C-alpha cells in the first residue's frame, strides 16, 4: 500500500473514533502538541522504532510521556493510538497522520487554511479584504496564516490547499527574465 493510503486510513479511523466519543477537538489538539514535541526531539522517533527496545518498554515509555502532572484526564485514546502505531511499525508516519487529522478537523469545521506570503507585513484592512475574497472563492471559512518574505519584492503569493495563486513581483520578473534571454537566440 502507498504511504498516503496508510496515513489516510489510520487518520480516518482514529478521527471517527474520537468523534464518536465527542472528543475530536481535544484529540486533535493533543496530537498537535505531541507531533510538535516529537519534531523537536527527533531521537524520540528513533527510540520508538528501535528494535532493541522491547514492546513492554515502549508501552511504558508512551505512558510515561503522556501522564504529565497537569493533565486531569489522561489521553487514553492517544496512548492507545500511539501504541498501535508502534506495534504495527507505522510510527514513522506519525507526523503525516497528525497533519491529516488536522485537515480532517478543518474539513469538519468547514474551515480552509490558507497561507499568504508577502514582501512586507500586510495592513489589517487588506488582510480582511483578502480573506473575504478567498472566502468568496472557496465558499469556506478561511483561516489565513501570514508570512513575510522580502525576496518576493511585492505582490502576494497564496497557498490554498494544493493550489498556488502566485501574484508576486518576483515571479513576474523571473518570467520576464527568461523571456528576454530566450528572445536573444
Amino acid at each position, binding site marked *: 500500500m502507498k504511504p498516503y493510503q496508510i496515513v489516510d486510513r489510520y487518520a480516518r479511523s482514529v478521527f471517527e473514533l474520537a468523534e464518536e466519543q465527542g472528543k475530536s477537538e*481535544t484529540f486533535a*489538539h*493533543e496530537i498537535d*502538541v*505531541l507531533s*510538535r*514535541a*516529537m519534531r*523537536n*526531539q527527533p*531521537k*524520540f522517533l*528513533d*527510540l520508538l*522504532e*528501535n*528494535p*532493541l*527496545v522491547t514492546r513492554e518498554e515502549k508501552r511504558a*515509555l508512551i505512558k*510515561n*510521556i*503522556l501522564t*504529565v*502532572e*497537569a*493533565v486531569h484526564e489522561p*489521553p487514553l485514546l492517544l496512548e492507545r493510538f500511539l501504541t498501535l502505531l508502534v506495534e504495527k511499525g507505522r510510527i*514513522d508516519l506519525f507526523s503525516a497522520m497528525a497533519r491529516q487529522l488536522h485537515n480532517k478537523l478543518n474539513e469538519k469545521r468547514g474551515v480552509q487554511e490558507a497561507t499568504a506570503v508577502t514582501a512586507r507585513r500586510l495592513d489589517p484592512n487588506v488582510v480582511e479584504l483578502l480573506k473575504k475574497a478567498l472566502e468568496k472563492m472557496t465558499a469556506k471559512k478561511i483561516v489565513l496564516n501570514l508570512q513575510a518574505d522580502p525576496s518576493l519584492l511585492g505582490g502576494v503569493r497564496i497557498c490554498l490547499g494544493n493550489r498556488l495563486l502566485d501574484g508576486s513581483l518576483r515571479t513576474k520578473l523571473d518570467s520576464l527574465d527568461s523571456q528576454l534571454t530566450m528572445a536573444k537566440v
Partner: protein
Amino acid sequence: MLKPEEVTSAIKSEIQKFEKRLQMESVGYVLQTGDGIARVYGLDDVMASELVQCSDHTYGIAFNLEANNVGIVILGSDADLKEGSLVRRTKRIVQVPTGNALLGRIVNPLGEPLDSKGPVPAKTFRPVECVPPNVVRRQPVKEPLQTGIKAIDSMIPIGRGQRELIIGDRQTGKTSIAMDTIVNQKGQGVHCIYVAVGQKLSSVVALAKMLEEQEAMEYTTMVVASSEDPAPLQYLAPYAGCAMGEEYLYNGKHALVIYDDLSKHAQAYRQLSLLLQRPPGREAYPGDVFYLHSRLLERAAKLRDEEGGGSLTALPIIETQAGDIASYIPTNVISITDGQIYLEADLFYAGIRPAINVGLSVSRVGGNAQTKIMKQVAGMLRLSLAQHRELAAFAQLSADLDQATKNQLTHGDRMVEILKQDTLACVPLERQVIAIYAGNKGYLDDIRLDLVKTFEAELYKFMETKYSAVVHDIVKEKVLSETIEKRLIEALSAFKKEFLTRHGN
C-alpha cells in the same frame, strides 16, 4: 490539556534513559538473516556499498539503505551470523589489491589468494567501484590488440581500449577465443585479467593449468567467483577485476580484462535483488540491470597521451540460449559494447572453428584499430564472406549453377577453410597477412579443399626460410607497398608451383 513544554521535557527524560542503546553510529544489530542477506538495524550514516564487518572473517556490503534498516549482502558464509549479532562499519568502500603483486595469481573478488602461493604482497589498493574517465580524458581507440586469431584480426579487429562482446551458445568456443587472446599478448606489454563468474571450478582449474603451460600466467591474474561461491562474490567479481585493470590504465600501461561471463553475473545480481525485495522487471531482472553492466563496461577506455595513454580493453562474454541474441541481457550488453563476435553452434558443429558468424559480427571502432597492411589485405573480406554464406545456402537448393557462381563458391570455400584455426595456435600478424593475401588473390582456388591447411602451414615455412626478407619487411613497415606486394606475388607463385609438383593435386 496536554502542554507542549511538559511533553517535550518528558520525552527528553525518556530519551536519556535509553541513551546508551541509541548510540549506534558505527555498529548495527542483525534483525534477520538468511540466503546470504542480512537486515541490520543501526549502522547510522553507512555509505552505499560500504564494506561492513559481520564477524572476524566475514564481510558484507551495505546494499540497501532503507529508512529503518540496512540490507547487507554477505561475502562468504552466513553460517555464524545470527539474529542480534553485531555488525561494524569499516568506513571504506570495498577495495582490492592491485599491481604487479597480482601477476600470476588466482584470487577471489576480494583479492584473497586461492592458489598456494601465499599471501598477496600488494602495495596499492583500489576501490572496486570507480567513476569511468570522462570524454575529455579519453581518445579514440587507435592501437590494435592482436588476438592471434585470423578471422578476428582480419575482419573484426579489436583495439586497445575497446569493448568487444563475445556472444554465443554454450560450448561454442567463447572462452577459447578469450584464452587465445591472452596467450597472444605475450611480450606485448598487456596485462591480462581473467574474471571467471559462476563457472565450474574444474573448468577454472583447467584454464589456469593451460595458461601456466603456455607461460601466460606471468602477465595474467585470474579473479574467480565460481558457481558454488555465494551470489555477492559473483556479483563483485567483474568490478574487482576491472579495478585491477584500472591500476594499469591510470599508470600509462595496458590491460585486458575478460568477463566470463556476464550472463551469470546478471543472474547473481538478480538473485541478490530478489532476496533484497527489489521489484523484479523483465525476466525477473531488477530495473537497474542495464546500469549494472554499463557502469562496468564504461570503465574500459583509451586515455589521452597527456594522461599517460594507458588503455583498458574489455572482452565481456555472454552466453545465449539457442542462439537468441534478442533476449534481455544480450541486447543490453550488445548495445553497450563497441561490437560483438557472434559464435554459432551450427558453424561449430560443421567444423568451422572459430565458429564466427561473419554477418552478425562487427567491430564498431574497427578501422582505426587495424594495422594498415591488414586493412589493405582484408578490407573487403568480411563482406565477401558474408555474401559467400548466403550464396552457399542458396546453392544448396539449386542443382545447376553457372560457372561464375561455381567459381565464386570455390573461392569462398577456400577462404572459409583458411580462416579456420585451432585453439592455442596463435598466428602472428605477418603470417596472417600472407595467408589472407594468398587466399584473396585466388592462389588457393585450385588447391583441393583438404590440402588448404597443409598449403597454409608449408607456405609459412617456405616464406620464412626462402623469402625471410619479405616477411621481415611486412613486420617492419606494416604497409603493403608496391615493392612488398611484387615480391609477395613472386614468392607465392614460386611456392605454389613447388607445392603443386609435390602434391600433384
